[in-house]
């Protein structure tokens, strides 16, 4: 077991190295750099740009150095926990992400809990009462949920929130709490706004999870050990929850690792439509403006979290289902 963890941890080093190179390369792909897009933006508004000033800026941000020098500087900084500076905001990347990460985490975790709380019971019900009226209904609703693009749901929920509940459209706080310090009032205000993003982000996941849960549980229910246990007189509900459901939960656990990067990327589309102060829109802006270090560091962070998340879910799976073995089988 410890051998496995160690092995996986060691593998993370070259993986992350390659990932950092690719992240940097992707960010460098667009022709030009932040300054060129900055200048063209200025020129569009009719301002003139002094060539000398541009050169000075370029020097200051190291944009005139060869790419590999820029990479080494950036990667070296990452090792020290220095994520670089954002051109656009003129502030450290760490600060920018830091001030948005709390709300992003709250939304992601609540969404996850919502997804599970809804999907697991429905999945179990659908499998146990296969082809019942309720099963058909949930399957239908689930498919619709899967097929509806998130932003549409976001728009509709926002409209309902606005027209029925009279809430300010978008954002997570009412205007009066926008810049206020944390207090009980602000917290309850947050709770009253939170349901929109949670429902919007959670719907697709819930629908998918119901399908997976139902399918897995159906497979398990037809296995012989279930019949044996029934024949031995194990109560139906106890049996169901103790064995088949536990096995059917496996895929849930193997996707739990994806929650970590999800916290940072934070359902970008929904966040953009709803105007949420989370990290997703930050990443989008950074990518569009070629804010190199901000975008690069965020992509890097996301990938690192994915790698860690995958490891965590693999370990969880091992713990949940001792039959799984990851050590390679030698023939």
């Amino acid at each position, binding site marked *: 077991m410890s051998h496995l963890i160690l092995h996986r941890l060691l593998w993370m080093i070259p993986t992350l190295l*390659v990932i950092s190179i690719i992240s940097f390369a992707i960010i460098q792909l*667009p022709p030009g750099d932040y300054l060129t897009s900055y200048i063209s933006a200025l020129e569009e508004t009719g301002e003139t740009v002094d060539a000398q000033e541009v050169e000075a800026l370029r020097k200051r941000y190291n944009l005139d150095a060869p790419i590999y020098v820029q990479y080494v500087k950036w990667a070296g900084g990452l090792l020290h926990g220095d994520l670089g500076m954002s051109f656009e905001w003129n502030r450290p990347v760490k600060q920018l992400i830091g001030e948005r990460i709390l709300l992003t985490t709250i939304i992601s975790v609540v969404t996850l809990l919502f997804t599970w709380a809804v999907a697991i019971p429905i999945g179990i019900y659908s499998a146990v009462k296969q082809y019942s009226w309720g099963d058909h209904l949930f399957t239908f609703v689930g498919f619709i949920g899967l097929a509806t693009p998130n*932003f549409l749901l976001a728009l509709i929920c926002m409209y309902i929130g606005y027209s029925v509940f009279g809430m300010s459209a*978008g954002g997570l706080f009412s205007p009066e709490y926008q810049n206020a310090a944390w207090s009980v009032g602000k917290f309850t205000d947050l709770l009253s706004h939170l349901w929109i993003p949670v429902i919007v982000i959670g719907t697709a996941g819930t629908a998918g999870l119901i399908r997976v849960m139902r399918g897995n549980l159906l497979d398990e229910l037809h296995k012989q050990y279930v019949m044996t246990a029934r024949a031995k007189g194990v109560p139906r509900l106890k049996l169901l929850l103790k064995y088949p459901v536990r096995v059917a939960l496996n895929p849930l656990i193997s996707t739990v690792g994806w929650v970590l990067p999800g916290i940072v990327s934070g359902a970008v589309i929904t966040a953009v439509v709803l105007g949420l102060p989370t990290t997703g829109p930050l990443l989008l802006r950074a990518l569009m403006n070629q804010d190199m270090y901000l975008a690069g560091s965020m992509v890097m962070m996301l*990938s690192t979290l*994915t790698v860690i998340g995958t490891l965590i879910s693999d370990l969880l799976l091992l713990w949940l289902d001792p039959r799984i073995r990851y050590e390679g089988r030698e023939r």
Partner: protein
Amino acid sequence: MIIPWITHRRWNTDNADDTDLETRTDHPPPSESPDLDAEMADTELYTASQWQLMWWKFRKHKLAVGASMVIFALYGLAVFCEFLAPYPLMYRDTAYAYAPPQRLHFFADDGFHPWPFVYRLRGERHPETLRKFYAEDTSQRYPLRLLVRGEPYRFWGLFQTDLHLLGVDPGGTLFLLGTDSMGRDMLSRIIYGARISLTIGLVGVTLSFILGLTIGVLSGYYGGWVDNLVQRAIEILRSFPSIPLWMALSAALPGSWSPLQIYMGITVVLSLIGWTGLARQVRGKILSLREEDFATAALLAGASKWRIMWRHLLPSFMSHIIVSITLAVPGMILGETALSFLGLGLRPPITSWGVLLKEAQNVQAVAFQPWLLTPVIFVILTVLAFNFMGDGLRDAADPYAR
């Protein structure tokens, strides 16, 4: 050299397929006696090829068959969009900006009309709010006409014509799904958008299919360092979360590219992650299948590695591959919609469903021009249809399963 029992391997391995056996599926002549009939049916069942069995099983899945028809119709829309759309893509009538969907009427003051008609649309301004709104001018009727001469267009870019499936006489308008801010007919734009949105999924899936299949087969069959390298590469690619990676790559497409180049760029971006899952699946199948008796037999019979891979191993799990690519198409369509919606994907003048939806990005649209959201209905319909068809295919993919 052919070892006789090799031709019978399908009975040993359950799902090996061979084209020469498909010729045996000619239906037996109908017979009178019921006993003999049942026997014949049995014979037919036992001699049917794998694809034949799959088709029979698929046919029983009513929902999947219905979904396939919907998909077929949608692609028909995409292929013949110039003819089916009431207006050409670039046609606009600024006098009718944000016109709501026009209703087809069957009843008028003078009773029932078997053939539907629309009233003339009259734009007016609200006296107080000055908001523009439209009213029906019931004095002027325009019956719906089939095969009318309307705005000229080039069909498939080949020849000039002005024949449209639906239309009204000159002077009238036919905005069945309303118009957008520039007075362009939404229905026509949706129909043209189908061409882009639906093909982007297909091209993307084809790309990831070719990549995934080739790499997966090589990785699974050769094993060793090839396998190791491929698996690591896949692991690394998969550790990029998909939406941020798509966003980063699409943002990297140069703005100076032509619409066609952007289109190709987006499909490549979309298929970049898709192939990894497929390659893994293929590799897993190859790993287990190459240990099967029929693979060994082929090897002993002197077949080359290449032939064993593509002729013996691959057909055995082709059906599963088809299922997974069917299920991958909706993801790509939704991906394109999402990217275009964020302004990172396709850009006007290309018209895709995502581009259309970008215009409906705000609450005002939902409140005042809800018809701008109609492309979503087509997106949902497509995604649902692909999912249902995939479900049916999955059940049919393993025709020997009970």
